[in-house]
């Protein structure tokens, strides 16, 4: 039995704008509109919007809901304030990463968990089946829509279109507002620029999209989303993160500060004490030819790692990427080569981010 790819409520809008559509994790999504590089630059210098409806949004509520989620994720939720959110990971008992996610606290008994599209069904079953009786779980992914508005003008355009002040929100803070029902604006994003993620009722998303278009905000697709997040040094599940590694191998120990136990915390602690055998690192090629995921990283002709993501970086004008490399050789500054199959590219290991917004 084959499944047709799913469509977000904005599918017709993308087609109407002439977007090139691809199947991404079972969803027909826009890869580009007027060009990946133009959309990338526009996000860094102006403002763009991204249809992110395909991502998952779970609502968890009731007495003990916060404590219940806190036992499932690496993020320390006990110190979150109302209107604050935090990035973390959902781990298996063996420490393998099921997903990266953001947990939002509305109040002590109302939470939202935002997850990736490709892992939505897996995450849903994992979380729902591990919540105690009395804690309510709702997969709100169809009921609520999500739109990312990113770039230096994102706050201004959000204020213009919605009358909502995002500029005064701190980073990883959010507030609710009314937009034909409950709506959320959070100061979060996946581009390395200032911006917001907007959550509105799915019945209002087409209208919201049209209002941003009318205000002069152009859309950007998944192609630019990938080049932007790569430059910003942000991992992508399925590339930098997977069930085969813990966040320690991913070099993301700064997100593992929680002292209390969660699923996978024993393995995480052991791995940190012993040190991982391999580590995720960035690399930079002094040239435009890209390394791609799956290619081998070499030091003195010896294979020492594998590329997890690679692309030409439009803002930096060179090729960059991430690679999982033997721990002993993963230090920034190490010169390496990447075997593209056609040739070997000279590169140097660097700590991400590759780019920081001015």
């Amino acid at each position: 039995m084959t499944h047709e790819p799913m469509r977000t409520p904005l599918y017709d809008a993308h087609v109407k704008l002439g977007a090139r559509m691809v199947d991404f994790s079972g969803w027909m999504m826009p890869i580009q509109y007027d060009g990946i590089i133009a959309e990338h630059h526009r996000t860094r210098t102006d403002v763009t919007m991204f249809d992110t409806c395909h991502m998952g949004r779970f609502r968890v509520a009731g007495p003990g809901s916060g404590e219940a989620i806190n036992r499932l994720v690496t993020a320390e939720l006990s110190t979150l304030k109302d209107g604050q959110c935090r990035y973390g990971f959902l781990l298996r008992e063996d420490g393998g990463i099921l997903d990266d996610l953001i947990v939002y606290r509305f109040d002590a008994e109302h939470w939202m968990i935002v997850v990736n599209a490709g892992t939505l069904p897996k995450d849903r079953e994992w979380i729902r089946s591990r919540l105690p009786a009395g804690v309510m779980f709702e997969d709100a992914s169809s009921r609520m829509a999500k739109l990312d508005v990113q770039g230096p003008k994102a706050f201004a355009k959000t204020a213009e279109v919605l009358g909502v002040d995002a500029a005064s929100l701190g980073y990883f803070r959010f507030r609710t507002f009314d937009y034909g029902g409950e709506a959320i604006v959070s100061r979060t994003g996946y581009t390395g620029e200032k911006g917001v993620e907007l959550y509105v009722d799915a019945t209002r998303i087409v209208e919201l999209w049209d209002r941003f278009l009318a205000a002069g905000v152009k859309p950007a697709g998944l192609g630019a989303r990938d080049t932007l997040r790569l430059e910003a040094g942000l991992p992508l599940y399925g590339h930098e993160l997977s069930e085969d590694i813990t966040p320690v191998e991913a070099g993301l120990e700064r997100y593992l500060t929680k002292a209390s136990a969660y699923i996978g915390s024993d393995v995480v602690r052991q791995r940190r004490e012993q040190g991982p055998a391999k580590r995720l690192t960035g690399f930079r090629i002094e040239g435009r030819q890209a390394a791609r995921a799956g290619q081998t990283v070499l030091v003195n002709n010896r294979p020492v790692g594998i590329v997890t993501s690679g692309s030409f970086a439009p803002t930096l004008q060179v090729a960059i990427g991430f690679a999982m490399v033997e721990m002993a050789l993963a230090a920034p500054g190490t010169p390496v080569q990447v075997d593209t199959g056609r040739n070997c590219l000279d590169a140097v290991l660097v700590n991400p981010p590759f780019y920081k917004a001015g």
Partner: protein
Amino acid sequence: MVQKNVWYTKDHEWVSVEGDTATVGISDHAQAALGDITFVDLPKPGKVVKAHDSLAVIESVKAASDVYAPVGGTVCAANDTLGAAPETINQAPLGEGWLCKLKPFDAAGLAALMTAEQYEAFLAES
């Protein structure tokens, strides 16, 4: 936008001839399909190719694509301006975005290629 005095391949390369020199590039259809071009791996002068050999590799943000020699010949020049500005291929695929020149080249090989009108028809039916 398909020029005259040019021959086309089914793989969307074009070749134009002036005297004993053939110039090779990719069509407007090809550059649009590739998207933003970020890097071009051009052949070195002196390289000898047969028709259908890989002549160059064009990278776009998401992928790498081979460019095949429309006819056999010897590379006599490559478009060095593309090193710093590969997007020229997107902007002017039939003009300044030329990839390389062949001299000598196998003129008999042109007979197997499509004229501009035939290429337009070929695009229309695919």
